[in-house]
């Protein structure tokens, strides 16, 4: 699939909680087929202190509206500038980049596990799975009830289970503590979130012999496999998370 560099128009910028925004951007040309787990490299204009593009997961795709949604957490100057994007402004993106989550087998029982901003690719993944006839369970971990993101959106794609660190909503603890995981009923895990969370989920999957894919968030410069900055230490040597990933089967990682 060929990569494109294009200007998109900001259709909406919605602040969902204090430091999280959902940007909906519209393509001028018809969108290509986008696979769940792929990402865009956004150029950050009007931010003198930042220089490189920002890799951002594709949160959702609407082929009818010809739009993409990006979930942005303000963590630094680049994302701060992106979060200030106004309706009608232009965002230059390179897309669609990276591989994707694998297609489940017909009898697979799938759970999507995410935490914080890492939930971003799981929405489009969930919708994609729905379109294939799967109804995945979704397990999301947040710090507390004020940090919960897009509960309704995720509820539309499957049963949502929540953990919060303080127990203010759902079960108290981390995702791997949730009771939904105590019965080993899943055959496939798709995970994205903080590295510690992904490692814990990978450990759970490994112990129970469940296929597990994780989407990594490495620092990136080019996004197209040229600079070799975003490498992941795998059983096959150093691979680029931008072209060989961002989605990796945990059996290939040295976790």
């Amino acid at each position: 699939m060929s990569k494109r560099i294009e200007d998109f128009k900001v259709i909406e910028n919605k602040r969902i909680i204090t430091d999280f925004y959902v940007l909906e951007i519209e393509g001028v040309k018809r969108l290509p087929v986008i696979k769940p787990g792929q990402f865009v490299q956004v150029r950050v204009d009007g931010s003198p202190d930042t220089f490189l593009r920002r890799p951002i997961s594709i949160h959702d795709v609407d082929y009818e509206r010809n739009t993409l949604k990006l979930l942005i957490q303000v963590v630094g100057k680049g994302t701060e500038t992106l979060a200030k994007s106004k309706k009608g402004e232009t965002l230059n993106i390179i897309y669609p980049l990276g591989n994707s989550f694998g297609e489940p087998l017909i009898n697979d029982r799938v759970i999507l596990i995410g935490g914080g901003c890492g939930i971003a690719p799981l929405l489009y993944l969930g919708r994609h799975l729905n379109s294939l006839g799967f109804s995945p369970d979704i397990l999301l971990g947040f710090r507390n009830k004020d940090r919960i993101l897009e509960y309704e959106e995720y509820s539309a794609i499957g049963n949502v289970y929540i953990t919060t660190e303080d127990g203010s909503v759902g079960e108290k603890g981390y995702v791997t503590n949730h009771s939904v995981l105590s019965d080993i009923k899943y055959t496939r895990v798709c995970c994205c979130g903080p590295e510690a969370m992904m490692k814990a989920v990978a450990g759970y999957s490994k112990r129970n012999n469940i296929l597990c894919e994780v989407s990594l968030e490495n620092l990136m410069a080019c996004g197209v496999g040229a600079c070799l900055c975003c490498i992941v230490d795998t059983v096959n040597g150093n691979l680029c998370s931008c072209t060989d990933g961002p989605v990796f089967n945990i059996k290939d990682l040295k976790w």
Partner: protein
Amino acid sequence: MVNLGINIGDLHFKNPVMTASGTFGYGPEFDDFIDVSRLGAIFIKGLTLEPREGNKYPRMAETPAGMLNAVGLQNKGIEYFESNIYPRIKDYNTHIVVNINGSYLDDYVTLAARLEKLEKIPAIELNISCPNVKMGGMAFGTNLVSAREVTKAVRAVYKKKLIVKLSPNVTNIVDFAEVVEEEGADSVSLINTLLGMSVDVAKMRPSLSTITGGLSGPAIKPVALRMVWQVAKAVKIPVIGMGGIMNTSDALEFILAGASAVQVGTASFIDPQASIRILEGIEKYMHHKGYNDIKEIIGYINK
């Protein structure tokens, strides 16, 4: 019709816009964005004799108007290059220049001798300036004796065009340019990255796994330009200028200061079409200024 052609010895390049090694992969990474064959040349990712895994993650840190990298020459080695990569890129309608690296002098010699046999590789870029490897690399390019020795040894086995890539991490880069010219280099390219570092204050540790790394991007452009200007005045061989070139105007600064050609590097990470935009921009500038031949403006400010 504007003539953008330049020569390194008897090797003709159709235009002076090239890509910097390590920023353009092997070329195909950019096929979706540009017609790679339109470029004057592509300088491909640094090659070593044996496969290398490079340095540990993290290898990159963004800095004001630039970035640090500590990739450390990750590549699959000459054998893989000859059998898997070369066949995929040899039919680009432009010159492919291989950037070569070694830990020991013999590594450079062996690599050069093997590359000599590849028909579609008309030149090599001798990288004696990589700041991110423990052995070799910059060690060769920051000592006049070893810079001379490695150039001389490679020259003895390599008959095609030999370009030596110089390190800016020296007291006087002109001395190095003069030494490699004396030993028969056909051209010098400069600058490689400037040694730098960054500390992650939140995590209270160095941003790079190697602590130090190579700084590139617009932050280094004035330094690079000054060095290119100094070297271009001192040597007779063509100088290929690079360091923070982001747009046409940046490229023209280098050409007016004495560079016969330019390499676009880090800019390709932000705009994968940067090199072609610069090529088109240079042509437009020539029209606008009423020049018919790029050679009329090379080193213009020194005339």
